[in-house]
């Protein structure tokens, strides 16, 4: 994965405090690991309970956006970055060499209308595209003042 893979709109102004990289097989039964990581990062970034729960759901939808809902032989790569006031997550589905491009993921967009509504409601910014043949999605959640506990 090149640096360009992780460069998403708006993150040139994000001065990260730290980051976590997660790589795992893109299998539905492992999605809970993505949610666990999101919760741990949000907690480390000192986000409040409500926003941690919001991020768990949003990251689940982000993962569905890039890897779909079927078991695959590819891998899901995620980069979590956080600052004093925001968390940004970029997710990329990396197909297995033998798998080749997946037509169902050729047009990057939220997994379905419900997924889009969830992302719209829970995060401040989100988007999806295809980079180097790999579906990519990203989100950014800013700290809500009331949620700091």
């Amino acid at each position, binding site marked *: 994965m090149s640096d360009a893979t992780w460069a998403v709109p708006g993150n040139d102004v994000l001065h990260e405090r730290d980051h976590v990289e997660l790589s795992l097989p893109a299998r*539905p*039964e*492992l*999605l*809970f690991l993505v*949610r666990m990581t999101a919760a741990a990062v949000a907690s480390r970034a000192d986000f409040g309970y409500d926003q941690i*729960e919001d991020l*768990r*759901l949003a990251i*689940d*939808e982000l993962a*569905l956006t890039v890897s779909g*809902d079927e078991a695959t032989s590819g891998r899901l790569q995620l980069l979590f970055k956080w600052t004093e006031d925001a968390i940004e997550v970029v997710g990329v589905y990396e197909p297995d060499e033998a798998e080749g491009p997946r037509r169902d993921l050729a047009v990057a967009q939220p*997994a*379905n209308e*419900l*997924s889009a*509504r*969830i992302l719209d*409601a*829970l995060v401040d910014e989100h988007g999806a595209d295809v980079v180097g043949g790999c579906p990519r999605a990203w989100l950014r959640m800013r700290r809500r003042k009331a949620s700091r506990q």
Partner: protein
Amino acid sequence: MTTEVNFEVTESDREGMPVLSVRGEVDVSTAPELRERLLALAEGGETTAVVDLSQVSFVDSTALGVLVSGVKRLRSEGGDLRLVVTEPRISKVFEITGLTDVFKIYASADEAVRA
């Protein structure tokens, strides 16, 4: 690794109405089991059922899609799919997706059965 540890669907009969009680996290991994249970009810001739989500700690769009498919199927047969939602986190997901306008949501299984 299994997913059964944090997910379970049990079926019971209350006053002649089937109630599916779901426990744990309903996501892309576990929602197919809920879909199968709902489908089995419909194919078994049931037209109205209750899905009790009061013990559910997480739902994503896949889970919601399964419930939407279920309610469409049962309403096409002249029945309905009634939901029990008590956890604020779960209620919020129904609210932000606009599904509170689609489902009849109750505070308990008893209330849903008697509605």
